[in-house]
């Protein structure tokens, strides 16, 4: 018995020595995998103001508020992390805690009835507000996901982004389905 426990433990110790992950767990939910990939791109193409600016050694928290399948994509962000940049998916039950440490806040569709309250509270905060709630960008959010002909597109509210002190790279604006500037 003891030998086996030893083998069991040894097997796991060998696990600890293993190198960087080469594959993440297969995610059944491809829609949210694609949304996660978009969010990963937002990290690349959005510039945060001082205090939240991404340095050569940064931890980026992507916060999911409410109940969304996006919560299950943590491994995707782990896999995208590098030695210099750590991306973490954080599930926040309470949206009011979100702006303290989050670079990006994703508002789940489950929070639709609290949307105006959340947006009002987050107004001007240097946090990129993203959601797949219908007409999110038009309602004052920053980047909204819309599904068009089974393809995921983004709508950007440039005004809301600049008010918060964020800057978006032109490449992101180019691929947007629509840019709202009011």
């Amino acid at each position, binding site marked *: 018995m003891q030998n086996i426990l030893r083998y069991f433990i040894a097997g796991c110790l060998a696990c600890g020595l*293993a190198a960087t992950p080469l594959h993440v767990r297969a*995610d059944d939910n491809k829609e949210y995998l694609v949304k996660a990939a978009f969010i990963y791109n937002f990290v690349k193409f959005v510039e945060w103001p001082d205090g939240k600016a991404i340095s050569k050694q940064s931890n980026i928290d992507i916060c999911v508020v409410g109940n969304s399948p996006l919560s299950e994509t943590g491994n995707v962000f782990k896999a995208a992390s*590098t030695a210099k940049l750590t991306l973490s998916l954080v599930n926040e039950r309470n949206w009011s805690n979100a702006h303290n440490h989050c670079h990006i806040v994703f508002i789940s*569709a489950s929070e639709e009835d609290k949307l105006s309250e959340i947006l009002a509270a987050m107004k001007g905060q240097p946090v990129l507000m993203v959601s797949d709630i219908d007409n999110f960008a038009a309602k004052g959010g920053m980047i909204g996901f819309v599904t068009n002909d089974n393809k995921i597109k983004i709508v950007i509210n440039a005004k809301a982004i600049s008010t918060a002190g964020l800057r978006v790279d032109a*490449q992101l604006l180019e691929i947007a389905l629509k840019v709202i500037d009011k």
Partner: protein
Amino acid sequence: MRTLPLTSSTILGSLAFILTTVPATADDLSPQAVLNMSLQDLTNLEVTSVSKKAEKANEAAAAVFVITQEDIKRSGATSIPEALRMAPGIEVAQAGAHDWAVTSRGFNNQFANKLLVLIDGRTVYNPLFSGTIWQLQDTLLEDIDRIEVIRGPGATQWGANAVNGVINIITKSAKDTQGGLVSASAGNLIKSDDGTRYGIKIGDDSYARVYAKYTDDRAEYNVGGGRSDDAWQKRQAGFRSDSKLTDQDSLTFQGDTYSSHEAEDYVLPSLTSPYLFASPQDIEATGGNLLARWTRNISAQSSTSMQFYLDNTQYKNSWISYNATTADLDFQHTWTGWEGNEIVWGAGYRLIEDHDAPTFLVSLAPTERNYSTYNTFLQDKITLDPKDVFLTLGSKFEHNAYSGFEVEPSAKLSWLISDEQMAWSSVSRAVHTPGRNTSDSQVVLGVLPTGPTLVPAVGNPSLDSEELIAYELGYRIQPIKSISVDIATFYNDYSKLFLGKIGAPVNMGSYFLLPDVLENGNSAHSDGFELSTKIDATTNWQLSASYSYINLQFNAKTGYGDLTGEQPKKQFNLRSTYLFPYSIEMTNSLYYVDSLNTLDIPGYYRFDTKLSYELMKGMEVSLVGQNLLAPQHKEFSAFLYQTPVEVGRSVYGNITWKF
């Protein structure tokens, strides 16, 4: 724009992908491939849309454990009962190369009669034995989507015999099994275990698959060493089609057919000296089924499902010959149109037609019988104030040919304390109804040399159902995203259990008859708990563990059999899966099963390991070791006329190719 540290890296393994054009859909892409796509490509990727609201982890007000396809694959299990070892509180004992005893929360036996097993909605409960003949319940394991294991009664929804638990084996939709698969295994105990499947698109949103498998297992071991004589072979083939007829209507057809050939070393009772004789022989079993299911989403608030199946099972050897055909029709309607209520109701009818060729050892009277069961059920999940507390009330009303009308109500309360915590409790009544074996049968248990005296177990046509009132309490918590913990406790109060009582001897002329008559003899109670946890230690390392405890006591009543001490009081398992680089994966599993005192079976540890390596995309080789701790060990007692068999150490290799 400054250069970010991450742009320089993360291009892992998907260069080939980047060089090619964008595929039409995201469904066949790896997460890494999607991550490495350009923004432009992302916006052109097609996805299958899903509900925006995630199903919360597990809100069921019952002790549910789900074994996923990934769990099955990683465990190295080659049969459904082997896979069930992973579920907490389920006792799985292998009694020979092809014999299994599986139960939930006590009362184990080869034909454990308080556990209901369904494959894709079809009951595989055998009408003669009132139990599951596990070796005949199979499908291509790679096509199983998940196995939902429910401990505790499920009678309100599933009806009679869902007393101590329900096992739902759910196969994948044909849409999710497109393309080919070939799998071959061989080892010291597995002579060969081969399977193949091919799935095609047969129309607009219409898919089908066919599969075939062949299992050839070598014999296990006799107590004290030497090979037993219980090798077996089984052939099985089947199909499934899933079609979306309209936006509202879906249709599923499926069917399986099998034939099995099991060697067995019987020692049969006889009225001539020495009153027992060795009879090594083969049992031939065949069967098949056909099922059709039509589901219709009438509106966002209303959906219906109608299902019909036919199932035939037959087996034959020198002392038993039985053939049963079941026809079953079920209708279910879910309606959420009344705010704060989720109403599910349904009705069902089942007709069983069976016949038996009587032998000296086993006979049924009448030898042929047609009997039917009809039922209706109604359940309402009511949202209480505050909105995170739910009360589910419901009952099954069922009529069967043996005990007549049965009511199986339940009340469940669940409280979603937060997104990470939920608590539930329930009170329910379930019954195990009498059947052919308990009411119409005579089975010779043995012959005593004095007289000689024949001792048969004799069925009793006036039996009432066995009853259970179950009280359950459970709690789930996910303290941090990577850890989940599930605790369920129970108190079960059984009454009117079927137990034999020795009657008065009858002089038959050349011998005496000492009948062991089944009666609603005894009552019993059990209490216990099951604890399970899953931990994602790192992205590449997953752990899971479970522990269960049960204390089952029969209330003393003289003259009746007593099953106290036939359950393992404690069981636990610990599993670890590690994903190494270069597509190497290792899973280690350790299982412990406590002693079965009155059956004189010592507790045992079992250690399984699986190492797999993806040779190329779609092709995987693996090496599996099972029962590595001892050359052989005993897990259960012999059934009826069987010779006791111990389970040996098994090592096998597998190659699986998906294309």
